[in-house]
């Protein structure tokens, strides 16, 4: 995090970010906010929770900044300081992993669907059955 001043704002991270297109913001802009010491704005930036943790940004950074690690640190700090709220799925995942040690994918899927209405609920129900029939849900 203290390395953000090394960023030269070349935009490679954002251009290669698969989800920057979906959000109005980009990793480069978040790092810029940090350079300007506008931390709160960074925590609240909705882009943070769009990140798919695909590591493309860190890999392509010409200054070798761990861009993804910075995004993840912001996620944590934002949550801790009550500036932002992680999507329900994250808490559900963590809860399950702490309680049972492992994740049951279908149960997690159900929980997530509770908080985020599926785009194709019928198809998802059908998918559930098909997965069950193929033994992929146990």
């Amino acid at each position, binding site marked *: 995090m203290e390395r953000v001043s090394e960023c030269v704002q070349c935009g490679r991270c954002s251009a290669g970010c*698969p*989800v920057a297109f*979906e959000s109005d913001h980009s990793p480069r802009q978040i790092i810029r906010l940090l350079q300007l010491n506008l931390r709160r704005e960074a925590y609240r930036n909705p882009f943070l*929770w*769009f990140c*798919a*943790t*695909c*590591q*493309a940004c*860190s*890999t392509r950074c010409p200054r070798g900044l761990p861009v993804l690690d910075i995004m*993840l*640190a912001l*996620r*944590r700090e934002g*949550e801790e300081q009550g500036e932002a709220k*992680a*999507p329900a*799925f*994250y*808490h559900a*995942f*963590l809860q399950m*992993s*702490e309680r049972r*040690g*492992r*994740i*049951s*994918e*279908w149960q*997690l*899927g159900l929980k*997530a669907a509770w908080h*985020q209405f*599926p*785009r*194709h609920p019928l*198809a*998802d129900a059908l*998918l559930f059955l*098909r*997965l069950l029939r*193929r*033994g*992929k*849900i*146990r």
Partner: protein
Amino acid sequence: MKYLYYPGCSLKGTARDFEESFKAIAPVFGIEIEEAVDWGCCGASVAKSLRKDLAERLPLKTLDQAAGRGLDLLTLCPNCYLNHKQAQSRIQKGEPANPSPFRFPDVKQLLEVLGFDLGLEEIRRRLVCSLAEINVLPYYGCLTVRPFPPGGTESRENPRIMEKLIAITGAKPFSFPYKVDCCGGGLLLSKERVALKLAGRLWQEAGKLSPDCLVVACPLCHFMLDAKQQAVERELGKKLGIPVLYVTQLLGLALGMDHKKLGLHRLLTSPYALLKKLNHPGENAKLRKKAAS
């Protein structure tokens, strides 16, 4: 060649065909595995988004086990691989110091074991069927190559190890410029719209090449591209119907293995047409029926 095998949650659920096919082909190539006992979730990308201490602690359990057994750790799921590998490289850098009195184990992923530890020649030597009939599209996704590429030497922008594996089966690999792009799997349960869009973009490009099948090495990619294929079709307004195989399943076919042993019957998008093209004995009535449904 013996590894301590860490399955991870998916491999016991939606990706059980990955595990089945790996366990089927491993003995043929002389890969011995010992399954980790009492293993726990690695935290995926969630633990590090919320709690750093937890994320750093979770992988240590299995790493300790591997150290105690004197074996390197093998994971099939790239997400589990990344978490364990990161924990391992932290320890190698001395933060925290190696807690175990033993040599600290290396962490390997499937493509590394196949392509580097075993070597292409070793694999080629044992294959029995040529898959010359089919055109295969390799798809790596993110975490198989980033930030730790297979063997430590593979390119992270244009890896070729999967193409090489496909080529030795006799099948024709496409060179797919989008092979290291994100499939959106990680966002499926938090931002479904975005996830489907990313998968849709991939299928758009992959569809142009009309491959007989896709080959992947990640449970999450597989779920996104296979199980969620119909959802993507709906988003794109376009029929795809292209089966998505694990690289282990493809190698299994080249070993002439039974489709059930390889878990091919568990695919959501039927591989019927593919098996037929290959004249594979697994092309049986049941599969045909399934394809029809």
